[in-house]
Each structure stands twice: as C-alpha cells, then as structure tokens.
C-alpha cells in the first residue's frame, strides 16, 4: 500500500493554514496576557514613549528646577502617576514650589498633587492635558525572568528606555517591592516599567546600582488612583496631615508584635537579647579587637531596609537593633568600667535631619531592674514638626554588675508614635536578661 505524506502548503488546506498563521501573528499582541517575544526595544519605545512625561519642580519664583523626575498618564483625563519623593517639596513647603509636566512633544503644563501614598512613595497628579494614549495599571501574571522596559528621564538627558528583567516581589519587606534587574538612574523616578505590550509592571522608585533596582507594584498605584477618583475624595488637614496619618497607620501595623515574650532571642556571652524582631529585619554579627587593645567587642545588629522618604533632609520608618558585648580578661575592674562608660556614651547616635522638620532630642536616664538584671537605661526622643504625632526614638541600655563583661544594647526607631515608642522601650528592656 502506497502511503502519501501530508505536506502543508498543498491545496486548499494549505492555503487555509497559511491564513491562520498570519492571522495569529497579527492578533497575538492584542490578546490579554500574551507577551509577544518578537517586540523589540525600539518598537516598545516607539509605541509607548508618548505616554511618559517629565516632571520638574521649581521654586515658586524661579525658572531653574530643583527636582527632576518622570511620570506617565494612566487615563484620558490627564491623571499622572509619579513618586512622592519627586514632588515632596510641594508637600513639605506648600506655596514655595510649583510643578510642571513636559510631554514627549515638548509641551509644558502645570500640574497639581491630588493624592499621595507616602509608604509606597507614590503621588497622583492632575494635568490639564487630555492624552489620547496612556498606560494601563492592570498587569497580572508576569513571570520571573520576563523582559521589562523602563522608561524615564535619567539625569535630564532626554526620554530613555532601559531593558531589564522582572525578578519578582522581594521577600520579607515592610511593603511590596519588585526587584528589577536593570540600570535605573536619577531622573527616572516615577517613570513606568512596562511589559513589551505596554502594561505597567511597576513604577520606578529606587536603585542600589549594579543593576539592582526596585519598582512599586502597579497594584499600589491602581489603588491610589482609585482612591483619588472616588466620589467625595478629600484630604482633611492637607497632605502633611495625610502623610502623618498614613505613617501612623503603617507603623502601628509593623511594630505591633515586636519584642513580645515569644520573639526570638540571641545569646551573647552571659546575656540573652532580642533579635530578628520580625521577618523583614536583616541581622548581621561580627567581632572586633585591635591588636593592641585589652578588650573584645562582639556585635550583633538587625535592621529594616525599608525607609520612607519624607524630605531631602529626612527619612523615616527604619528600626534598628544593635548589641555590643564588651569583654576583658586583663583590665582591672575600675579600668573596665571606665571603658564601659565610654562605650555607653558613644557618640554614634546622630539621626540627621533639619530643624524645619524635627525638634532636637529630649532624654531621660534611669537605672532599671528586669528581674536579676540591672541596667543603666537611656531613652531619647524628638518630635516631627510637620507630621504631628510622629517621633524618632532611641533606647540604649548597659547591663550592670559584672567586673569584666557587659552588653550595651541600642534600639533606634524612626517615624513612630510616642505610645509605640514607650511600649517598645518597655518590651525591649524587659527582654534583656542575664543568664545565671
């Protein structure tokens, strides 16, 4: 029996097959959730760059910009998304600054801030333009390793595109952040990072260099835009009061369970101390002894990585734990306590900041007993002038009673309510113990 091999391209079936193939190639980019791998970088730039804008902030009576960033249209009513830190000067010193948007054609218009999300570092702006194209904030199903394209105005060199890779949401962070492997640069903040079919994966927010960059997930921007467009939306008390409310709610959430009796502890010498207060802390340890010195310092530190931008002079939202075990086998008791005093009084507690935004510190020092453990405890705090109800605080304790060893432990908190600072100080001191 003769077998006939079926070959495409022959006859009517072949013609229909060819038509189907061409149609698939043409329609695939339009299908939701599809990623046309054939899109090239120049093609992405050509198709979507007109939706990206430059945001510049000026002193009210000046023509020289003080801040440069990027943004993009998210709907046809002229709504623009950018970072909070791009427009923070308008928020922190209203009336002294103005913001303008410049589109890809070079047309410049003024913009106003409509809503902010300080925790996510986002801002919604309103512009008088009515764009005919925008970038939808509705991306789902991006896979790790997928190619992304970041758009923005790096160093005011003009609208640029940067290729990179989606590496998923970071684990153990205080708020969601996307890890983008691409070279973001200053000036690209607030710009979009999109898929090849123009859906926004995230908003450019920060970089650590070496192609390690971070994006705010598009879902956070979508939520902020929805809030801004909700009927009756207002910002009671102004944006600064709104920022304070957001940070207060945020710190209530992440500080709630820190330093509970069930929290993890670490042993340093004869002392048990709190460590890894929450999964979003990163901890490190080291030991220190100069060749000539007669004492050793064993250190253990944990800190969060997720600072909140408040202004150019102030960041907030960071918590740090620092333990230093000081030990000697050769110093006399008197000399050891002289050394121990200098370690307790170490002038390393400088928080930075500007007197326009924070007060100076007020302190209180006491001797505290936690069971059999006696400590010299310092508590210092300062208030935020423009964000009512928020404080920076530091608790430092030095264990007492041993002639040749002791621990100096420090807890630093920024952007917290005073009741939380007080409660955490109480829990922190209560979790330091001497193992007999």
């Amino acid at each position: 029996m003769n077998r006939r091999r079926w070959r495409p391209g022959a006859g009517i079936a072949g013609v229909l097959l060819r038509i189907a193939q061409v149609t698939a190639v043409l329609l695939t980019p339009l299908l939701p959730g599809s990623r046309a791998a054939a899109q090239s970088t120049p093609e992405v730039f050509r198709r979507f760059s007109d939706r990206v804008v430059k945001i510049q902030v000026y002193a009210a009576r000046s023509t020289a910009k003080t801040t440069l960033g990027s943004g993009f249209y998210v709907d046809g009513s002229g709504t623009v998304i950018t970072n909070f830190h791009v427009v923070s000067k308008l928020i922190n010193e209203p009336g002294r600054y103005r913001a303008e948007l410049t589109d890809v054609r070079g047309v410049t218009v003024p913009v106003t801030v409509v809503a902010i999300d300080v925790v996510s570092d986002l801002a919604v702006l309103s512009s008088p333009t009515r764009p005919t194209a925008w970038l939808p904030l509705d991306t789902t199903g991006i896979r790790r390793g997928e190619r992304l394209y970041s758009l923005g105005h790096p160093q005011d060199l003009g609208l640029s595109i940067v290729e990179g890779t989606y590496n998923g949401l970071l684990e153990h962070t205080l708020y969601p952040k996307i890890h983008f492997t691409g070279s973001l640069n200053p000036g690209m903040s607030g710009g979009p990072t999109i898929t090849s079919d123009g859906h926004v994966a995230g908003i450019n927010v920060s970089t650590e260099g070496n192609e390690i960059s971070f994006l705010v997930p598009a879902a956070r921007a979508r939520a902020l835009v929805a809030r801004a467009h909700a009927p009756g939306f207002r910002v009671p008390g102004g944006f600064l009061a709104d920022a304070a409310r957001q940070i207060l709610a945020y710190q209530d959430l992440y500080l709630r369970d820190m330093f509970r009796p069930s929290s993890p502890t670490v042993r340093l010498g004869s002392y048990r101390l709190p460590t890894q207060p929450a999964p979003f802390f990163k901890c490190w340890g080291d030991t220190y002894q100069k060749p000539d010195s007669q004492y050793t310092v064993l250190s253990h530190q944990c800190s969060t990585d997720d600072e909140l931008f408040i202004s150019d002079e102030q960041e907030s939202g960071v918590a740090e734990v620092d333990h230093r075990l000081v030990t000697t086998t050769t110093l006399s008791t008197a000399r050891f306590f002289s050394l121990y005093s200098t370690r307790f009084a170490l002038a390393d507690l400088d928080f930075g900041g500007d007197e326009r935004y924070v007060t100076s510190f007020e302190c209180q020092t006491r001797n505290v007993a936690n069971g059999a453990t006696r400590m010299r405890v310092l508590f210092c705090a300062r208030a935020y002038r423009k964000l009512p109800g928020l404080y920076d605080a530091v608790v430092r304790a030095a264990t007492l009673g041993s002639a040749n060893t002791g621990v100096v432990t420090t807890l630093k908190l920024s952007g917290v309510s005073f009741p939380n600072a007080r409660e955490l100080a109480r829990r922190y001191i209560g979790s330091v113990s001497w193992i007999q």
Partner: protein
Amino acid sequence: MDPVMHLEVVDRDDRVIHRMPFDASVFPLTIRIARSADAAAEEVANRDARLVTSPVGRALLVGAAAFAVFCGFMWMHTYSRSAVPAAIGGGLGYMLGVLLYTMLWAVGGRVATGSSRFARHFVWACVVTVTLILLGVAQNALLFFLPSPFLYVPLAVVSITAVATTIFGHLGIASSMPPVRRWRVAGIAVASIAALVGLAVYSGWNDFSTRVDYVGAIEPLSATVIPAESPDDFAHGLDAVKRKLDRKGSREH
C-alpha cells in the same frame, strides 16, 4: 676670732656688702662668720632639709604628686597594652597646661608686686587641678546614683565655688590684699565668668542639634546596691519627655 678684730666684706668700690655676723654658703656647708663675743652660733639647718621646706622644694614635691595623679587618671582611660607610655604622655600634657597657667599668674604677680612667686603659684595650681579632677569623678558617681537634672544646680554651685577659691588662693600669693578684699575680687571675677557662660547657654538654649547628648558614666558597683526601677515604672516616667517634646514642637523654629 679676736673680739677686737673687725671684719667687713666690701665690693670693688669699697662698699660694704657684709658685716659680722654673716653666713657664707659653701655647698653643702653653711659657714657663719661671727665674733666670739657674739651669741653662740645657731645651729645652721641642714641645707637638704631647707631645700625640702623651701618654696622650690615644696613645688617639686607637690608637682611630682600631681604628675602621678595626672598619669594615673590618663592610665585609667587608656585600654591598650601601651597604656603606660600613653598615660605618661597624657600626664605630661596636663603638667604643661598647669605650667602655662602658672606662668600667667607669675607674670601678673611680678608686674603687681615685683615678685613672681612662681613656685607657690605652681603648688596652688597643682592642688586645684587635682581637686577638679577628683570633683569630676565624684560628680559622675553622683549622677550615676541620682540621674536627675536637678542635680546640675548644686553641681554648678560647687564648680563656681572651686573657681572662686582658686582665684582667691592665687591672689593671696600674688598680692598683699586682705582676705575680705580677695574674696570680693574673686567673687566679681567668678560672677563675670558665670554671667558670660549663662549668656552663652541662654543664647544657645534653642539651638538645634541632631545629636543625642547624655551623661554616660557607669560606676563599678555591685548590681544589688544600685537603686533601680521596673521597666513599667521606667515607661510611665517617659510622659515627661513627651510633654517637653510637644512644647518644643509647638514653638516656632
């Protein structure tokens, strides 16, 4: 010598420098030239003993003791294996400061009275410096036991008294003022210094700082003798900090 003999020592211009009896020093001996009819020669004190009780001798002894205190203080605050040479270097630094300070008073005394009395000023300066060091140590110990801001007032009074006493002592060496007048002058000097310091503190009262400043002294005592409060009481006591901060925050900067 023959009682009728008459002995004079004259200079080149025949001016009489000495008449009997007189003492001539030939170290380590002192020779008294006298007539036999004169009262029996007093026993001449041993030169070494005079050296010890002389102003120079006292200055050397007190200076050596002060230097030992300075070196000991520096040694207490050095924690490396090369603590001894570091301590000696620090002690020499302190001593140099004392010498420069003494020189100022000596010059002033020379101008005022024609006599510098450097050795006496030096002794007083050493005593004062050692006293101030010991006062500082005592102050830290007191603040460790009673960490209250109200202690700063009596401690300031003690410091002012120490400065006034220092000036009083130097004036007694450098001048012939009666004690009442010396206290008055010392009081005026201290009041002037206190007024300047007070003005400086007041003008800097609202000065902004990002640093955390506090007294960090910790004393080598058994934990059981140190009075302490519970973590709960400590937390309750922090309301005072909040009240001060809220007052600061409400003030215009």
